[in-house]
């Protein structure tokens, strides 16, 4: 069964939403993290990466945050 690009993007967004929900309890903290320039992303804000559909970059930055990387 083939997966369309649109379906794959939707799946990526769902997976990332789950990760964000598991990382942050409050919407405020999640929003702050998404909108703040992130050194790991070379100064990009995660939300800008999401707008460019760079899901892997955001997932990696989230993993760095969750594993306790100092930035």
């Amino acid at each position, binding site marked *: 069964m083939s997966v369309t690009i649109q379906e794959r993007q939707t799946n990526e967004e769902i997976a990332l939403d789950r990760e964000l929900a*598991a*990382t*942050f*309890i*409050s919407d*405020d*903290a999640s929003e*702050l*993290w998404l909108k*703040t320039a*992130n*050194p*790991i*992303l*070379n100064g990009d804000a995660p939300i800008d990466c999401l707008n460019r559909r760079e899901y892997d*970059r955001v997932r*990696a*930055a989230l*993993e*760095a*945050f*969750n*594993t*306790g*990387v*100092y*930035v």
Partner: protein
Amino acid sequence: MWRCHHRSRAALNADGSLAGIGGRFNAGVDSDVKPPFRALYASIESAAALLEVVRHLGYRSPDRRAVVALDDIAMRVLTQIDIDLQRVFDLRKEPVLRENLSHASYRQTQQVAGAAFNRGAEGVLVPSATGIDANLVLFVDNLDDSSRIDLLRQIDDLNPVIASVAQGAS
């Protein structure tokens, strides 16, 4: 030494450090500093380990009057680890780090750390961006066979630590 990490992640998991351009003292896969190398970030003081994370959850210094997102800290744990290493480089007096860490660029801090990594350091002692004591950044891929990192205990309820940090800041 103390580590602060999400409760769903293993305390000694350093894989996340390779993300993007990497952490403050290690080069990630997208960094200009080569080669990329993994690092495990720890702090001498538990408060520093906590604040290194908290400051990305909405924390601001008391004079800026922002609020710590306490609910989100509840997703974190503090793990105390006992470390016995053979080659730790003390970079706290390194000129680029000594003045003010916030003025040092990522390229600078990663270059300093990369030079230590390439010389075989198992870890580096560096100033903490929180201003509390120092951090130890462990280069897990350089660990000697005789070196060891042991888990001592994990603190799941961070409220007492937060209270003590808040008391110290007031």
